């Protein structure tokens, strides 16, 4: 893994964020390299979602820097991050259920009709439906018909479309916030498959999950957050299920809390 000495695709340096007197993140640093899957784990309230929203441009950090390919950036909106090649899958579906699959894949990046109609603001809907299907297939997701509204899909299918959209558009990094939440075992495995495919395409992946076996299975490196700080950042090979859980909770023994047991099951 010598290539990790190269400039990271995306780097967060000494990020701090507080809400009033509550410190959500303090001095958090993170490096994401090409073809690397990073597991971002921590207990509820550890600051995972805040960190993702800072990385994706939803929130602005109070302190610290964000660097893409070594160049400092500050996101005013998620759109800025998207423009720079950083795609995000949000925990609560980021799809518009009343729009078609194709329209969702192209939302915010519509293809206009050629010529005068396009200048007048008219969309090339057919092109987008066809391309959306191809884009999703490219990342391993087969959809029935991209004209269908997302509201007609099941939860797992929606998640597949949302992940497919993020992977299809990402040029550098994808941030996946709890992508396997609410999914069955088979669908979860498919999501993990999409993550591996993204890695093989040379993307950097940040995978946030409570399901530790998934994290251990698919990541190259694990970053553990506790109370807004990075308490460990090490190759996945250095962890096992027990030590990972211990690092997350801060309890050195093998005390397993109830909800974590459920997550593992």
């Amino acid at each position, binding site marked *: 893994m010598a290539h990790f000495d190269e400039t990271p695709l995306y780097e967060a340096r000494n990020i701090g964020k507080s809400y009033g007197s509550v410190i959500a993140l303090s001095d958090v640093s993170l490096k994401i390299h090409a073809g690397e899957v990073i597991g971002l784990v921590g207990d509820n309230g550890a600051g995972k979602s805040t960190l993702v929203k800072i990385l*994706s441009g*939803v929130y602005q950090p109070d302190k610290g820097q964000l660097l893409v390919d070594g160049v400092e950036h500050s996101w005013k*909106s*998620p*759109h800025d991050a*998207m423009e720079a090649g950083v795609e*995000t899958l*949000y925990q*609560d*579906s*980021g*799809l*518009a*259920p*009343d*729009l078609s699959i194709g*329209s*969702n894949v192209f*939302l*915010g*990046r*519509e293809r*206009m009709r050629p010529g005068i109609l396009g200048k*007048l*603001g*008219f*969309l090339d*809907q057919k092109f987008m439906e066809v391309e959306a299907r191809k884009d999703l297939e490219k990342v*391993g*997701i*087969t*959809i*029935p*018909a991209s004209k*269908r*509204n997302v*509201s*007609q*899909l099941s939860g797992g*299918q929606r998640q*597949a*479309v949302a992940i*497919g959209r993020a992977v299809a558009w990402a040029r550098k990094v994808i941030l996946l916030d709890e992508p396997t939440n609410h999914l069955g075992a088979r669908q979860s495995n*498919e*999501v993990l*498959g*999409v993550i*591996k*495919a993204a890695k093989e395409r040379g993307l950097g992946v940040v995978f946030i999950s409570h399901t530790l076996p998934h994290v251990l299975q698919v990541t190259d490196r694990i970053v553990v957050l506790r109370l807004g700080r990075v308490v460990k950042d090490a190759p996945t090979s250095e962890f096992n299920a027990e030590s990972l859980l211990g690092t997350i909770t801060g309890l050195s023994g093998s005390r397993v809390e109830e909800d974590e047991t459920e997550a593992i099951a």
Partner: protein
Amino acid sequence: MSTKVAESTTSVGNASPEKVPTLLSRLLGNQQFLLLIAFIVLVAFFTTRNSVFLSNGEFANIFADFASLILLGVAETYVIATGGIDLSVGATSGFAGVVAAFAMRSMHGSEAVVLIVGFLVCIAIGALVGVVNGVLMNYAGLVPFVATLVTLGAAGGMSIVLTGGAPIGNDPNAIATTVSIIGPFSWPVLVVIAITIISGLYLHASRFGKYTFSIGSNEFASRAAGINVKSHLMKVYVLSGVLSGITGMFFYLRLGSGAPTSGAGAELSAIAAVVIGGAQLSGGSARLSGTTLGALILTTVTSGLIIMNVQPNWNQVAVAILIAIAAGFQTLRPSKRKK
């Protein structure tokens, strides 16, 4: 490593994967088709009661009433598609008509120039109310219902204050424009129909329309996709104001004066047309063809009841029944939606 979302193309969205929907069941699930049938049945019914109903003159009346309503319905369709509501459309149309009447009365010029200036004043007043609505929502944080309730009161009140309650102007040139030129259509009615068609194409085929629906469907997802939600909502409410202003000019042409009470309560008919047309009030889903048929049905019923010599007060009851039927159909229809 292929993630199969569905085994076959027919398995998504249909209750039973094996069954391909028949043409009949598809048509019965289509609100526009049912509305078209309802419209034809209503016309047939009123014609059997009184053959005058099918006459050119009566159709001219129906289309003039339709034209008074449809642009407000278009405005409301855009707004409701975003998940909002605009209560100010009726009051804005009356206010725009009044201000334009003052402007036109003070002018000396050829009649065409005077009317064009009136038209532009109406658009400007409508846009202004739309901007106020947008500012109240985006910067004062009011919800659409409250913001537009404020402008309803302000515009409606200002119309009365400015005019003392009496119509402004007496303009035979304006009324002259409302004579039918092609079949039952006068040129202002044709202009209104053209605006309606363009608005429909724009809502359903343009990027602006796509964002209108996406914001109503999932505001967070729209923002995350890079859509400037506040700016888009501002544009939608300005569009709503402009369409209301144009309706104010239409009222002026029909009456030959700017009447402060014209348009009062019209927002309810406009919302009724949208609801009958099958839109979802929570946003994300609406069809302008549905709204158009809804407005046609409302105006047909109103005219039909007059022709049947039913007391005009029953009109509101008839509208209420139509809304109840349309809303009932939406809940009874096999739902295509989840959550």
